């Protein structure tokens, strides 16, 4: 819908029990930031703040009746968002807190697949809270912990005071290995600046790939990227980089991997059928994909993002003078054939 100004932004908070979600939620509800939030939780109990706009909702995953196993939505969110949006003047944004074991995918897909929800709201970002101390254990005993990181736009690496600097480096490297595109914040007691988790526009095609200049470059091994004075990336995060990114198997218990592709200008007649086919065939294995594509004969950058089989793309802005017309694409998922993706991607380049 074109009525963009009335779309309420939605932030999804994931993370295991004890990772610090409630602490962060309490800050969002109590800090003086001039915005009002409606919060959808699974259980009231933990939040110590009395607020009319905290809604308890039972997680309810619905498979869509279209034969696609990855097409799942959260039925309870559809109902609650519709109810909240009947009185839209009460809040400026919505925060959805998921249970510790929740799969973030149905939550996110709800905001793309349900027409009513999509008309009235827009997914802003998925934020994963991670307990620095317990992550290695979590990764051992559950797929969900890994999925939550793989799916996140922002990772809040919390409780850093409970680990040694070496342990912290290792945990951060693991997170990077699972998800090279996410922005990582090291915190204690969920002490991240709220503007780093709220109003991120991570799913907004015109903003998503713009506000993180390191997107897709975080794992550039040749380090040719030079940050300008207005680069807001946390540079110290590079400290933790070991170069395991393309080989998740180096890190124990990690099954998600990312495939980063880079090429020149693409032939639109080849590229679009290819990406359609990849998302159709590999959809169940793809958790997220993001890309900036240079199309031959097109003056604009083309930006793409996807969740499983859902693919969104649009012209973003004109290439700047002197900007290299190159295409970059990252897939985060399981059982991805990196070699085949690379070859078929490169075959889409314009002659």
């Amino acid at each position, binding site marked *: 819908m074109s009525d963009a100004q009335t779309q309420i932004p939605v932030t999804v908070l994931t993370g295991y029990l004890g990772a610090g979600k409630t602490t962060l939620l309490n800050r969002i509800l109590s800090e003086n930031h001039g915005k009002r939030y409606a919060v959808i939780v699974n259980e009231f109990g933990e939040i110590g703040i009395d607020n009319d706009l905290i809604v308890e909702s039972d997680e309810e995953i619905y498979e*869509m009746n279209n034969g696609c196993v990855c097409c799942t939505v959260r039925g309870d969110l559809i109902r609650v968002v519709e109810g909240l949006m*009947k009185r839209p003047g009460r809040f400026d944004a919505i925060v959805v807190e998921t249970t510790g074991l929740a799969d973030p995918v149905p939550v996110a897909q709800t905001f793309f697949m349900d027409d009513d929800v999509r008309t009235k709201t827009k997914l802003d970002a998925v934020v994963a809270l991670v307990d620095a101390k317990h992550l290695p254990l979590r990764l051992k005993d559950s797929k969900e912990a890994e999925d939550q990181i793989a799916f996140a736009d922002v990772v809040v690496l919390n409780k850093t005071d409970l680990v040694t600097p070496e342990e912290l480096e290792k945990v951060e490297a693991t997170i990077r290995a699972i998800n090279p595109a996410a922005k990582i914040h090291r915190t204690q007691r969920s002490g991240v600046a709220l503007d780093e988790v709220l109003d991120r526009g991570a799913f907004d095609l015109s903003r998503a790939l713009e506000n993180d200049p390191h997107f897709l470059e975080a794992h550039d091994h040749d380090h040719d990227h030079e940050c300008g004075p207005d680069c807001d990336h946390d540079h110290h995060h590079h400290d933790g980089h070991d170069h395991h990114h393309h080989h998740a198997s180096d890190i124990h218990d990690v099954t998600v991997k990312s495939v980063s592709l880079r090429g020149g200008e693409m032939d639109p007649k080849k590229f679009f059928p290819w990406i359609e086919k990849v998302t159709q065939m590999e959809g169940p294995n793809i958790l997220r994909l993001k890309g900036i594509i240079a199309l031959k004969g097109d003056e604009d950058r083309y930006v793409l993002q996807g969740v499983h089989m859902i693919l969104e793309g649009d012209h973003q802005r004109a290439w700047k003078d002197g900007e290299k017309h190159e295409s970059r694409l990252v897939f985060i998922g399981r059982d991805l054939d990196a070699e085949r993706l690379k070859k078929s991607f490169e075959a889409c380049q314009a002659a």
Partner: protein
Amino acid sequence: MPTVAPLDLEGHCVAAVFLNDVPHFALADGAIHRLDNGQKTVQANDGLLAAFHDAANDRLITGGEDGKVFAVKAGGEVSELAGAGKKWVTSVAAGPQGAIAYASGKTAFVRFADGKIKEFAHPRSVEGLAFSPKGMRFGVARYNGATLHFPAAEGKPVELEWAGAHTGITFSPDGAFLVTTMQENALHGWKLADGKHMRMSGYPGKVKSLSWSVKGKWLASSGAPAAIVWPFQAKDGPMGKAPLELGTRGNTMVTCVACHPSQDVVAIGYEDGMVIAARFADAKEVLLRRPGKGAITAMMWDKEERRIVFGSAAGDCGVIDITA
């Protein structure tokens, strides 16, 4: 020429009904406005999510964000019938002998006229509720089908299965058919005598409004650029038959339908606020209200078949007089 008496209110209109022939408008903030020698207002729920017109008792049953269920009667009498705790009450229905049903999370409740309450726990969320017109029986729309309960008796419920999420539910006036609205753009029906399935699909949008015509011969529905009206005269319902498409418009969707109490005519409300009436026999249309500020969300005919009360998502409500 039909005339419209407008009533401009603030907010989303959840229900527009006649109680004792007086137009009442239930808004999402829980305010119940009525046009009774001037505009008067009483307060029901703190956050009103669902409403059901209990025709037999001439009252409006409401449920809301405050976890409460109210009954609103003509003249502004509001009484609290039940509470379900902190969770939202998302669906309400009224049945025979003064019984009502309401849903909160995974539980359906029935409150009998004497105030006794019975709980029906479900493994998944209770999405929609409706009483059968015959006997003390009610249906629950749920994930992968519908469940029929017999609240006055002990015994197992009847499970009707169909894959997918069922969000709303209605019985035909003769009690022979059960129809659900779905998360996908379709209706599903069961012939209750033999459990035979009826698939009614092809809608470009979700179906949110259903209305049975007089004696249940037709079922009108929203969710398309026209009112989709399914024939239910045959013993197997609409199977193998095409629906009528009435009031087709190219640039907007039907959001609300309300069948005439005695004739084969349906009032059709659109996304842009327009209201027309269309006749089944020849598809003839009459404009009743020009487009307004918001989508039509609620409509009801009065007993004299002379007026239609309507509400919209933007609060521009009113009463149409078709004889004036």
